[in-house]
Protein backbone atom coordinates (compact mmCIF):
# COMPACT_ATOMS: atom_id res chain seq x y z
CA UNK A 1 0.00 0.00 0.00
CA UNK A 2 1.37 3.40 -0.93
CA UNK A 3 2.51 5.96 1.55
CA UNK A 4 -0.35 8.18 0.38
CA UNK A 5 -2.98 5.59 1.31
CA UNK A 6 -1.26 4.98 4.63
CA UNK A 7 -1.39 8.67 5.38
CA UNK A 8 -5.10 8.70 4.51
CA UNK A 9 -5.73 5.78 6.83
CA UNK A 10 -4.01 7.56 9.69
CA UNK A 11 -6.16 10.62 9.08
CA UNK A 12 -9.37 8.59 8.92
CA UNK A 13 -8.41 6.87 12.17
CA UNK A 14 -7.74 10.25 13.76
CA UNK A 15 -11.10 11.58 12.56
CA UNK A 16 -12.96 8.55 13.85
CA UNK A 17 -14.07 7.14 10.52
CA UNK A 18 -15.47 3.63 11.11
CA UNK A 19 -13.01 0.90 10.09
CA UNK A 20 -15.24 -0.77 7.45
CA UNK A 21 -15.66 2.52 5.61
CA UNK A 22 -11.99 3.42 5.93
CA UNK A 23 -11.03 -0.04 4.65
CA UNK A 24 -13.37 0.32 1.68
CA UNK A 25 -12.02 3.74 0.72
CA UNK A 26 -8.42 2.56 1.13
CA UNK A 27 -9.07 -0.51 -1.02
CA UNK A 28 -10.68 1.56 -3.80
CA UNK A 29 -7.84 4.05 -3.73
CA UNK A 30 -5.16 1.38 -3.77
CA UNK A 31 -6.78 -0.46 -6.67
CA UNK A 32 -7.11 2.73 -8.71
CA UNK A 33 -3.54 3.85 -8.08
CA UNK A 34 -2.19 0.38 -8.92
CA UNK A 35 -4.19 0.32 -12.12
CA UNK A 36 -2.90 3.77 -13.16
CA UNK A 37 0.69 2.73 -12.44
CA UNK A 38 0.23 -0.55 -14.31
CA UNK A 39 -0.87 1.46 -17.34
CA UNK A 40 2.27 3.57 -17.19
CA UNK A 41 0.66 6.47 -15.37
CA UNK A 42 1.09 7.73 -11.86
CA UNK A 43 -0.90 8.37 -8.71
CA UNK A 44 -1.31 11.96 -9.88
CA UNK A 45 -3.46 10.71 -12.77
CA UNK A 46 -5.87 9.36 -10.15
CA UNK A 47 -5.62 12.02 -7.48
CA UNK A 48 -4.74 15.24 -9.25
CA UNK A 49 -3.36 17.86 -6.90
CA UNK A 50 -4.83 15.99 -3.93
CA UNK A 51 -1.73 13.79 -4.14
CA UNK A 52 0.23 16.51 -2.37
CA UNK A 53 -2.10 16.85 0.61
CA UNK A 54 -3.29 13.41 1.72
CA UNK A 55 -4.70 14.57 5.04
CA UNK A 56 -6.87 17.20 3.45
CA UNK A 57 -7.96 14.74 0.76
CA UNK A 58 -8.85 12.10 3.35
CA UNK A 59 -10.87 14.55 5.42
CA UNK A 60 -12.67 15.89 2.34
CA UNK A 61 -13.61 12.42 1.14
CA UNK A 62 -14.85 11.26 4.54
CA UNK A 63 -16.74 14.53 4.98
CA UNK A 64 -18.39 14.22 1.58
CA UNK A 65 -19.52 10.71 2.43
CA UNK A 66 -21.08 12.05 5.59
CA UNK A 67 -19.09 9.91 8.02
CA UNK A 68 -17.55 12.96 9.69
CA UNK A 69 -18.36 16.65 9.77
CA UNK A 70 -17.44 18.24 6.43
CA UNK A 71 -14.13 20.12 6.48
CA UNK A 72 -14.08 23.89 6.09
CA UNK A 73 -13.89 25.01 2.49
CA UNK A 74 -11.73 27.68 0.92
CA UNK A 75 -14.80 29.63 -0.05
CA UNK A 76 -15.19 32.93 1.75
CA UNK A 77 -17.52 32.96 4.70
CA UNK A 78 -20.70 34.85 3.86
CA UNK A 79 -20.95 38.17 5.68
CA UNK A 80 -22.89 38.23 8.91
CA UNK A 81 -26.25 39.84 8.34
CA UNK A 82 -27.88 41.10 11.48
CA UNK A 83 -31.53 40.32 11.63
CA UNK A 84 -33.64 43.43 11.76
CA UNK A 85 -35.81 43.44 14.84
CA UNK A 86 -39.35 42.50 13.84
CA UNK A 87 -42.08 45.08 14.40
CA UNK A 88 -43.62 43.16 17.27
CA UNK A 89 -40.42 43.14 19.29
CA UNK A 90 -40.68 46.65 20.82
CA UNK A 91 -44.43 46.21 21.28
CA UNK A 92 -43.83 43.00 23.21
CA UNK A 93 -41.20 44.65 25.40
CA UNK A 94 -43.41 47.65 26.18
CA UNK A 95 -46.41 45.42 26.90
CA UNK A 96 -44.42 43.14 29.19
CA UNK A 97 -42.95 46.10 31.07
CA UNK A 98 -46.32 47.81 31.42
CA UNK A 99 -48.10 44.71 32.70
CA UNK A 100 -45.20 44.00 35.05
CA UNK A 101 -45.32 47.50 36.54
CA UNK A 102 -49.10 47.41 36.85
CA UNK A 103 -48.90 44.12 38.72
CA UNK A 104 -46.22 45.47 41.04
CA UNK A 105 -48.33 48.59 41.66
CA UNK A 106 -51.38 46.46 42.37
CA UNK A 107 -49.35 44.44 44.84
CA UNK A 108 -48.15 47.59 46.58
CA UNK A 109 -51.68 49.00 46.71
CA UNK A 110 -52.95 45.77 48.19
CA UNK A 111 -50.31 45.77 50.91
CA UNK A 112 -50.80 49.46 51.74
CA UNK A 113 -54.60 49.14 51.77
CA UNK A 114 -54.43 46.08 53.96
CA UNK A 115 -52.02 47.78 56.29
CA UNK A 116 -54.18 50.89 56.80
CA UNK A 117 -57.36 48.87 57.42
CA UNK A 118 -55.51 46.82 59.99
CA UNK A 119 -54.40 50.01 61.74
CA UNK A 120 -57.97 51.30 61.70
CA UNK A 121 -59.23 48.02 63.17
CA UNK A 122 -56.71 48.25 65.90
CA UNK A 123 -57.58 51.82 66.75
CA UNK A 124 -61.35 51.28 66.85
CA UNK A 125 -61.54 47.86 68.40
CA UNK A 126 -58.67 47.46 70.75
CA UNK A 127 -60.66 48.85 73.61
CA UNK A 128 -60.64 46.08 76.15
CA UNK A 129 -58.12 45.05 78.62
CA UNK A 130 -54.55 45.99 79.15
CA UNK A 131 -51.20 44.40 78.61
CA UNK A 132 -49.52 43.45 75.43
CA UNK A 133 -50.88 43.96 71.96
CA UNK A 134 -54.55 43.28 71.29
CA UNK A 135 -55.55 42.88 67.76
CA UNK A 136 -58.87 42.07 66.13
CA UNK A 137 -59.43 41.74 62.43
CA UNK A 138 -62.05 43.87 60.72
CA UNK A 139 -65.52 42.47 61.14
CA UNK A 140 -64.62 40.32 64.09
CA UNK A 141 -66.71 40.56 67.22
CA UNK A 142 -65.03 42.05 70.21
CA UNK A 143 -65.00 39.36 72.85
CA UNK A 144 -66.44 40.20 76.23
CA UNK A 145 -63.12 39.56 77.86
CA UNK A 146 -59.75 40.85 76.87
CA UNK A 147 -57.95 38.80 74.27
CA UNK A 148 -54.23 38.93 74.35
CA UNK A 149 -52.16 37.92 71.38
CA UNK A 150 -48.53 38.09 72.18
CA UNK A 151 -46.15 39.36 69.55
CA UNK A 152 -48.60 39.67 66.64
CA UNK A 153 -48.86 42.74 64.50
CA UNK A 154 -51.77 44.57 62.93
CA UNK A 155 -54.32 42.62 60.96
CA UNK A 156 -52.44 39.37 60.87
CA UNK A 157 -55.47 37.20 61.43
CA UNK A 158 -57.23 38.18 58.18
CA UNK A 159 -54.24 39.43 56.15
CA UNK A 160 -52.84 36.03 55.01
CA UNK A 161 -54.57 35.65 51.64
CA UNK A 162 -54.14 39.32 50.73
CA UNK A 163 -50.43 39.29 51.51
CA UNK A 164 -49.98 36.10 49.52
CA UNK A 165 -51.84 37.62 46.60
CA UNK A 166 -49.75 40.78 46.78
CA UNK A 167 -46.56 38.71 46.92
CA UNK A 168 -47.63 36.66 43.91
CA UNK A 169 -48.49 39.81 41.95
CA UNK A 170 -45.17 41.37 42.85
CA UNK A 171 -43.21 38.28 41.80
CA UNK A 172 -45.02 37.95 38.49
CA UNK A 173 -44.63 41.66 37.83
CA UNK A 174 -40.90 41.59 38.51
CA UNK A 175 -40.56 38.47 36.38
CA UNK A 176 -42.35 40.18 33.48
CA UNK A 177 -40.11 43.25 33.69
CA UNK A 178 -37.05 40.98 33.84
CA UNK A 179 -38.30 39.07 30.81
CA UNK A 180 -38.77 42.31 28.92
CA UNK A 181 -35.19 43.36 29.76
CA UNK A 182 -33.82 40.01 28.62
CA UNK A 183 -35.79 40.22 25.41
CA UNK A 184 -34.44 43.65 24.62
CA UNK A 185 -30.88 43.21 25.89
CA UNK A 186 -28.12 44.03 23.35
CA UNK A 187 -26.33 40.70 23.84
CA UNK A 188 -29.54 39.00 22.78
CA UNK A 189 -29.23 40.77 19.39
CA UNK A 190 -25.58 39.80 19.09
CA UNK A 191 -26.45 36.18 19.72
CA UNK A 192 -29.05 36.31 16.96
CA UNK A 193 -26.42 37.80 14.67
CA UNK A 194 -23.98 35.01 15.43
CA UNK A 195 -26.64 32.44 14.67
CA UNK A 196 -27.18 33.99 11.28
CA UNK A 197 -23.44 33.99 10.60
Amino acid at each position, binding site marked *: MSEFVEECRREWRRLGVPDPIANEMAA*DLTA*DIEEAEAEGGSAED*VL*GTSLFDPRRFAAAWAGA*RGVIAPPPTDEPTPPVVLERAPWYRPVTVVALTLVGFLMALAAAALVVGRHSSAVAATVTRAVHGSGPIRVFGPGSVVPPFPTVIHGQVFGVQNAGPAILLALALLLVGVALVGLALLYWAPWSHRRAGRRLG
Partner: protein
Amino acid sequence: MASGDGRRSQLLRGVLDLCLLAVMDEGPAYGYEMTKRLRARGMSIVGEGSIYPLLGRLERDGLVETRRQASNGGPPRKYYSLSAAGEQALEAGIEEWRAVRDAIDGALDLVKLEVAP
Protein backbone atom coordinates in the same frame (compact mmCIF):
# COMPACT_ATOMS: atom_id res chain seq x y z
CA MET B 1 -8.79 38.99 -11.79
CA ALA B 2 -8.19 35.23 -11.72
CA SER B 3 -5.26 33.87 -13.65
CA GLY B 4 -5.85 31.42 -16.51
CA ASP B 5 -5.20 28.32 -14.38
CA GLY B 6 -7.17 29.70 -11.45
CA ARG B 7 -10.18 30.44 -13.62
CA ARG B 8 -10.04 27.03 -15.25
CA SER B 9 -10.00 25.40 -11.82
CA GLN B 10 -12.95 27.46 -10.66
CA LEU B 11 -14.96 26.72 -13.77
CA LEU B 12 -14.17 23.03 -13.59
CA ARG B 13 -15.04 22.87 -9.91
CA GLY B 14 -18.48 24.20 -10.71
CA VAL B 15 -19.30 21.55 -13.30
CA LEU B 16 -17.18 18.52 -12.43
CA ASP B 17 -20.08 16.81 -10.69
CA LEU B 18 -22.14 17.28 -13.83
CA CYS B 19 -19.34 15.80 -15.93
CA LEU B 20 -19.15 12.79 -13.61
CA LEU B 21 -22.87 12.22 -13.99
CA ALA B 22 -22.39 12.50 -17.76
CA VAL B 23 -19.68 9.83 -17.92
CA MET B 24 -21.76 7.57 -15.70
CA ASP B 25 -24.51 7.92 -18.27
CA GLU B 26 -22.30 5.75 -20.53
CA GLY B 27 -22.62 2.95 -17.99
CA PRO B 28 -21.50 2.02 -14.46
CA ALA B 29 -17.88 2.82 -13.70
CA TYR B 30 -15.43 2.81 -10.80
CA GLY B 31 -13.40 5.84 -9.75
CA TYR B 32 -10.36 5.60 -12.00
CA GLU B 33 -12.47 4.41 -14.90
CA MET B 34 -14.41 7.68 -14.70
CA THR B 35 -11.14 9.62 -14.70
CA LYS B 36 -10.16 7.81 -17.90
CA ARG B 37 -13.53 8.52 -19.50
CA LEU B 38 -13.16 12.21 -18.65
CA ARG B 39 -9.68 12.21 -20.17
CA ALA B 40 -11.02 10.55 -23.32
CA ARG B 41 -13.49 13.45 -23.59
CA GLY B 42 -10.71 15.98 -23.30
CA MET B 43 -10.86 16.66 -19.56
CA SER B 44 -7.87 15.86 -17.42
CA ILE B 45 -8.03 16.16 -13.66
CA VAL B 46 -4.25 16.47 -13.43
CA GLY B 47 -3.77 19.91 -11.96
CA GLU B 48 -7.15 19.65 -10.26
CA GLY B 49 -8.40 17.93 -7.15
CA SER B 50 -9.54 14.35 -6.97
CA ILE B 51 -12.99 13.12 -7.97
CA TYR B 52 -13.47 10.89 -4.91
CA PRO B 53 -14.95 13.51 -2.56
CA LEU B 54 -17.35 14.49 -5.35
CA LEU B 55 -18.38 10.88 -5.83
CA GLY B 56 -18.96 10.64 -2.09
CA ARG B 57 -21.21 13.67 -2.19
CA LEU B 58 -23.16 12.38 -5.19
CA GLU B 59 -23.68 9.11 -3.37
CA ARG B 60 -24.79 10.83 -0.20
CA ASP B 61 -27.21 13.01 -2.17
CA GLY B 62 -28.76 9.93 -3.76
CA LEU B 63 -27.75 10.89 -7.29
CA VAL B 64 -25.71 7.71 -7.81
CA GLU B 65 -26.10 4.11 -6.78
CA THR B 66 -23.14 1.92 -5.92
CA ARG B 67 -22.38 -1.75 -5.92
CA ARG B 68 -19.19 -3.70 -5.36
CA GLN B 69 -18.28 -5.90 -8.24
CA ALA B 70 -15.25 -7.87 -9.38
CA SER B 71 -13.28 -6.10 -12.08
CA ASN B 72 -11.38 -7.80 -14.91
CA GLY B 73 -8.63 -9.70 -13.14
CA GLY B 74 -8.35 -7.14 -10.35
CA PRO B 75 -9.81 -6.71 -6.91
CA PRO B 76 -13.53 -5.98 -6.44
CA ARG B 77 -14.27 -2.35 -7.27
CA LYS B 78 -17.00 0.02 -6.27
CA TYR B 79 -19.09 0.77 -9.35
CA TYR B 80 -21.11 3.95 -9.56
CA SER B 81 -24.21 4.30 -11.72
CA LEU B 82 -26.87 6.96 -12.14
CA SER B 83 -29.96 6.75 -9.98
CA ALA B 84 -33.30 8.07 -11.21
CA ALA B 85 -32.64 11.30 -9.30
CA GLY B 86 -29.19 11.42 -10.88
CA GLU B 87 -30.67 11.20 -14.38
CA GLN B 88 -32.99 14.09 -13.62
CA ALA B 89 -30.13 16.09 -12.12
CA LEU B 90 -28.05 15.42 -15.24
CA GLU B 91 -30.78 16.64 -17.56
CA ALA B 92 -31.42 19.75 -15.47
CA GLY B 93 -27.67 20.39 -15.16
CA ILE B 94 -27.11 20.18 -18.91
CA GLU B 95 -29.90 22.67 -19.58
CA GLU B 96 -28.51 24.99 -16.93
CA TRP B 97 -24.99 24.72 -18.32
CA ARG B 98 -26.11 25.44 -21.86
CA ALA B 99 -28.06 28.51 -20.76
CA VAL B 100 -25.03 29.83 -18.87
CA ARG B 101 -22.68 28.99 -21.75
CA ASP B 102 -24.91 30.78 -24.29
CA ALA B 103 -25.17 33.84 -22.08
CA ILE B 104 -21.41 34.01 -21.61
CA ASP B 105 -20.82 33.42 -25.31
CA GLY B 106 -23.22 36.28 -26.02
CA ALA B 107 -21.16 38.57 -23.83
CA LEU B 108 -17.74 37.43 -25.02
CA ASP B 109 -18.55 37.25 -28.72
CA LEU B 110 -18.79 41.03 -28.80
CA VAL B 111 -15.09 41.27 -28.13
CA LYS B 112 -12.91 41.53 -31.22
CA LEU B 113 -9.54 40.04 -30.48
CA GLU B 114 -6.55 41.27 -32.39
CA VAL B 115 -4.43 38.22 -32.96
CA ALA B 116 -0.78 38.90 -33.54
CA PRO B 117 0.54 37.42 -36.80
